[in-house]
């Protein structure tokens, strides 16, 4: 599969949030305003691309040669947790400005299932190193797209008369649901017809 195919797949067709239910907690939690949504989106994209690469290395250099694939979950998540913490410390030291913009979202990413999700999906799809990396970036961009769109809609809704019981997270979910309904336009067949 070409890189373009991978990108279209993860940004539109298998958008992590709108079709795969991965990364919903930050999607609902950090989409109240556009600035933080953008920050979170880029932070996730960054971590996902590195994580996809790192876990690919673990899978191919450790787990497969030793025939211990059953340790996939534990090694992947260990790697991701350490990576997130490492990235956080590194950015904090090297670029305080970037840290201010992204930093507060970084700890949230450890428990973002989207990161582990992309690692597992890349492995299951037998991607090579570069494909994994591209898939990580693409899935991150898909997350970025969804969360930024969501935040623009929520900012609009902030100035509207949403009935009281629905205000806050309920309306965010319903908004997400309608977005997902529209995103059903993108499917595997579309990709096949475009590239196939």
């Amino acid at each position: 599969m070409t890189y373009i195919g991978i990108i279209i797949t993860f940004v539109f067709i298998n958008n992590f949030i709108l079709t795969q239910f991965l990364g919903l907690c930050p999607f609902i939690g950090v989409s109240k305003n556009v600035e933080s949504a953008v920050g979170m989106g880029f932070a996730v994209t960054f971590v996902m691309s590195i994580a996809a690469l790192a876990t690919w290395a673990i899978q191919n250099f450790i787990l497969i040669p030793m025939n211990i694939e059953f340790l996939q979950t534990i090694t992947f998540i260990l790697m991701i947790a350490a990576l997130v913490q490492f990235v956080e410390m590194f950015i904090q030291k090297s670029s305080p400005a970037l840290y201010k913009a992204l930093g507060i979202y970084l700890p949230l990413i450890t428990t973002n299932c989207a990161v582990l999700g992309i690692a597992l999906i890349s492995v299951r799809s037998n991607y090579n190193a570069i494909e994994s990396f591209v898939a990580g970036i693409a899935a991150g961009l898909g997350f970025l797209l969804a969360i930024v769109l969501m935040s623009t809609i929520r900012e609009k809704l902030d100035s509207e008369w949403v009935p009281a019981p629905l205000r806050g997270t309920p309306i965010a979910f319903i908004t997400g649901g309608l977005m997902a309904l529209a995103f059903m336009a993108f499917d595997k067949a579309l990709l096949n017809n475009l590239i196939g």
Partner: protein
Amino acid sequence: MLKEFTKGIIKENPVFVLALGLCPALGVTSKVVNALGMGAGVIFVLLGSNIFVSLLKNFIPEKVRIPAYIVIIASFVTIVEMVMEAFIPSLYESLGVFVPLIVVNCVILGRAEAFANKNTIGASILDAFGMGIGFTLALIVIAFVREVLGAGTVSLVPIGSWDGVITIPGLSTSPARVFSLAAGALLVMGYLQALLKWSNMRKTEVKK
């Protein structure tokens, strides 16, 4: 003491109130039986990780706290995964990618962080049960609504010759399929949350 147990079920319900663990709450809830399986898995993992974290809270160094917790959680998840695949393969197939993702279920890490590493084993066990049951109940409610609307069936655990599926006449022939898909899951979740919020609002109004 009992409070640690009951708070997770309604007042601090992890899914509806704390909005944690949303991915599995929506991902696996197209069938009630999946919700039951996922709930059981989460209770087991939550129990195991809460016990170990509260036991090891003084042993684990601060700098590697998160990696250490997550390794403990991941071990329990892997055990669940392997046992499920070996002994309940049909359930394993329908839960699919979501079993390993129990690892990143924020409910579990959240409880380890916020509760187990500050409390005794006893309290942690109660907390795990309460949160786990609250999580499972929430999943069952979501799954029930989604399955009835989206497939016109209610699938429970198969017993003996009965396959465990209750078919609702009329609905099952032309169900609103959207509810079994991603869009419907998000909609159902939103309305259920709003319902809970509405009933809470009414309660406080009555008190006034």
